């Protein structure tokens, strides 16, 4: 530490002056780099924002106007957002999505938090092997196991409903267990050990020590699960495609355009409506959410 603080201040300016003769040209070069970087940033920013802006503007257009070259809605047809609820059973689809996402998330937490705790904070034989199996289950394409699972649910007469997508979460979700375990590992084991010495059993340690400290991690995992269920297309296609009454809203959106020809105004209104709940949740929980994404990547 001392050597760094001692040598840095004199050495750095000397070096820079040695390489670039005058401070002025250095400054102008930096300004140029700053300008270039910001031009790229602003240009990319406009490109990234444009789709959302166009979708929003189109969602306010009449179906005739969407087929013209104009960009600005004339007039603003706010009732697209009402009309879309009467053209398709949108309320029911939103209800299905909410049921799917909320139950899947709650079930996942009940089953996956204890397992993740055991993997992170209890030493037992086979924990390494079990964790490896969970990672494989998490990363393997779901299509590999889809057929026998479908056969099971059809024998239980539950195809045509969303239950085959909700109920398995009662028996743990590999990605959630993985993520929760990574969060639990960041809690120092001393807290758990101290609680054990105080006479707590493992359930007590989990409930009184680990859960309160892991709230952000649990929240992030829950949000991931909620989003994944809300956004799911493959699952509802597999189990509910022949029963529109059971469709979640994301699946309904995919068939919306085909049914109603070319009404892009209504389609874009529905696109907005499917997206808004996700964006709202994100803004309320931005900090834990971003932390969660980082942990999926950095820790593995």
């Amino acid at each position, binding site marked *: 530490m001392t050597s760094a603080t001692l040598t840095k201040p004199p050495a750095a300016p000397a070096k820079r002056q040695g390489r670039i003769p005058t401070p002025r040209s250095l400054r102008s070069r930096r300004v140029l780099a700053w300008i270039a970087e910001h031009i790229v940033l602003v240009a990319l920013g406009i490109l990234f924002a444009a789709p*959302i802006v166009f979708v929003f503007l189109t969602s306010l257009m009449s179906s005739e106007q969407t087929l013209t070259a104009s960009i600005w809605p004339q007039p603003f047809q706010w009732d697209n957002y009402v009309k879309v609820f009467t053209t398709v059973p949108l309320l029911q689809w939103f209800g299905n999505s909410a049921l799917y996402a909320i139950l899947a998330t709650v079930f996942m937490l009940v089953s996956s938090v204890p397992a993740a705790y055991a993997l992170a904070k209890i030493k037992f034989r086979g924990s390494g092997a079990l964790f490896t199996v969970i990672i494989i289950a998490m*990363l*393997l*394409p779901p299509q590999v196991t889809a057929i*026998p699972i479908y056969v099971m649910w059809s024998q239980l007469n539950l195809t045509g409903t969303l239950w085959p997508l909700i109920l398995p979460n009662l028996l743990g979700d590999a990605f959630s267990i993985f993520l929760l375990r990574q969060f639990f590992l960041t809690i120092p084991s001393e807290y758990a050990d101290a609680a054990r010495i105080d006479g707590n059993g493992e359930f007590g340690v989990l409930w009184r020590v680990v859960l309160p400290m892991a709230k952000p991690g649990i929240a992030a995992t829950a949000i991931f699960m909620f989003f994944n269920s809300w956004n799911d297309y493959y699952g509802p296609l*597999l189990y509910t495609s022949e029963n529109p009454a059971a469709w979640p809203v994301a699946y309904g*959106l995919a068939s919306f355009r085909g049914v109603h020809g070319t009404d892009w105004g209504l389609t874009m209104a529905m696109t907005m409506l499917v997206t808004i709940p996700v964006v709202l949740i994100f803004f309320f929980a931005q900090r834990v959410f971003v932390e969660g*994404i980082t942990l999926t990547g950095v820790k593995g």
Partner: protein
Amino acid sequence: MTSTAIREGRAARVRPSRARTKRKLVTLALLTPALLGLVIFFVYPLIASVYYSFTRFDLVSSPQWIGLRNYQYLFTQDPNVWQATLNTLWFVVIWVPVKVAFALLIAGLLARAKRASGFWRTLFYLPALVPPVASVVAFVFLFNPGTGPVNQVLKFFGIQGPLWFNDPAWSKPSLVLLGVWVMGDIMIIFLAALLDVSKEQYEAASLDGANGLQKVRYVTMPSIAPVLLFSVVTGVIAAIQYFTEAAVASGVASGKAVIGEGISNNLGYPDGSLLTYTQWLYVRGFGTYQLGYASALAVLLFVVAAVILILLLRRFKAFTPEGAQ
């Protein structure tokens, strides 16, 4: 006195083992739901898939053993499996690197932006939040050849835009553009890794006379290499199961999706260019209910995924907390 000592000694010997048994039981109780889940929804279906792949099975009658005939058909006769495989490979080879490269580029820009960094991060991350179906529907509209805003803008600059999702040559590149738009998750991971690189290392490199490019090559890249590798491998895993975006794009762009018919109606539109391997598996399994044959396709997918996973797990151990110990 001796007896009490013995008794205490015995108690001391008994108590820990009883406590150990109890702890084992509690651990087992904590893990039971997950263990059951792994057996019922992972291990059993994996084995059953292999068994079904040697049978003829249509869900109505019970599976009938036909030996290797499904595999024989898969490798020699299936009219679509080759095209589906090539399309999927295209996504592995193009979609993954382009997406990762853009995420890295933008993360690099954001790591340097000091003013309003929160605003920029949110802006570039936001598209990743849009549900995949919604983002595909939006892109098919934005890129529609007739009056879509993208071709309008291109026309303004005097460029005749392509047919995008309606042209077999442009449909996959259009999905790459969509992939770049929703690269936010990878970008956040890269950004965290870039901000983690220690300033001392950059300063040390400067003192050694390294220029900007050399600093990227010798300081930045080695520090973010694990994250980069991780995102490439998970990207490849995502690409080999590429399904939703392609299926929805085909359905919406063809304008023929009909309630209840799933995706089989306009498979791979335009001209099979978006028919991916997993869609073909889906259609054989749940469109025509050739579950035995679809299982053979699933087993092949498993083999390919397993090879990639083994490569991943080797590296993975190196940067998990236990691996470091």
